């Protein structure tokens, strides 16, 4: 059983999601639910940043949860970006083609500047 801890922070109305650990089949449903619930809440965020600093691994199932989050964000009219990707996570995003449909920033400051 893998462990993925996800914490949320709000900076000037922008929700920063920090997944920490491995995003695989076991963790995917919980992560997806966190993204969907945050976007469906009464306080719609001005933007959502997935800060991948501590995300070490993304599997096929994990990638789908990112896709669902990106789709939910677009439906809600909330800008959705990722930042601070490790080399292995970036490779998953690049090979799968996910990087073609989402915006990536080098770090959280750059992502916040974009959404700010």
């Amino acid at each position, binding site marked *: 059983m893998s462990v993925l801890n996800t914490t949320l922070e709000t900076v000037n109305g922008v929700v920063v999601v920090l997944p920490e650990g491995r995003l695989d089949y076991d963790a995917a449903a919980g992560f997806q639910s966190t993204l969907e619930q945050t976007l469906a809440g009464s306080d719609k965020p001005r933007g959502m940043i997935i800060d991948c600093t501590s995300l070490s691994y993304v599997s096929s*199932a994990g*990638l789908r949860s990112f*896709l*669902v989050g990106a*789709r939910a964000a677009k*439906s809600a009219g909330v800008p959705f970006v990722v930042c601070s990707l490790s080399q292995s996570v970036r490779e998953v995003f690049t*090979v*799968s*083609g996910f990087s073609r449909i989402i915006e990536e920033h080098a770090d959280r400051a750059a992502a916040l500047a974009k959404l700010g």
Partner: protein
Amino acid sequence: MISLAEELALLAIEDDGAVAYTAGQAGFGMALIGACLVDLNGQGRLDADLTAVHILSRAPTGDPMLDLVLGEMSGDTLLSVEQWVLQLAPQVPTLVQLALTALVKRGILAQKESRFLWVLKERRYPVMDGREQKEAKLRIMSTLLGDDVPTPHDTVLVGLARAGGLLEGFLSAQEIHRLESRIGEVGGIDLVVRGVEAAIREDQAARARAMMLPMY
């Protein structure tokens, strides 16, 4: 609800009930294996990354296609999606037959046998309930014509339909050309689909190499 693998097989059925020529091609077979792997992923039997497929559970799913694939994925060696697709390729004729049987059982297709030129036996699968096939085509079209982020199911369906040569069954060459950029953008945002595409490329390269060998 039909499985992704059944949905893909359904797209290979032509208006007159004939199984499309495409279904006999290696690309379709590999796309069908990919659909089974995605279905197995969705049912928690396996997960995949860029280097390997990880079996999470060997518990039968109750779906003959998926259980056949899962049963074949034995051994301790970790193989990538591409390697598994190539290794499972000999199972394609059985998988196609199982998919058609499942669709007949669901009342979506009928099975009719006739004689061609009074001698050759011919089996057709006329569509009895066209909703599922229409829905699959509509989902592909709305994914390609819209600008939404696709659902995981729809991106896989588009990606595997493209890899299996099924888009040509209901889109003209001009339409495919016009939608090429969108197909590339939203088709197959998925590691299993990318593995299927790599397997098809490898298979084509192997066939090309074989044709270059001297005949003596």
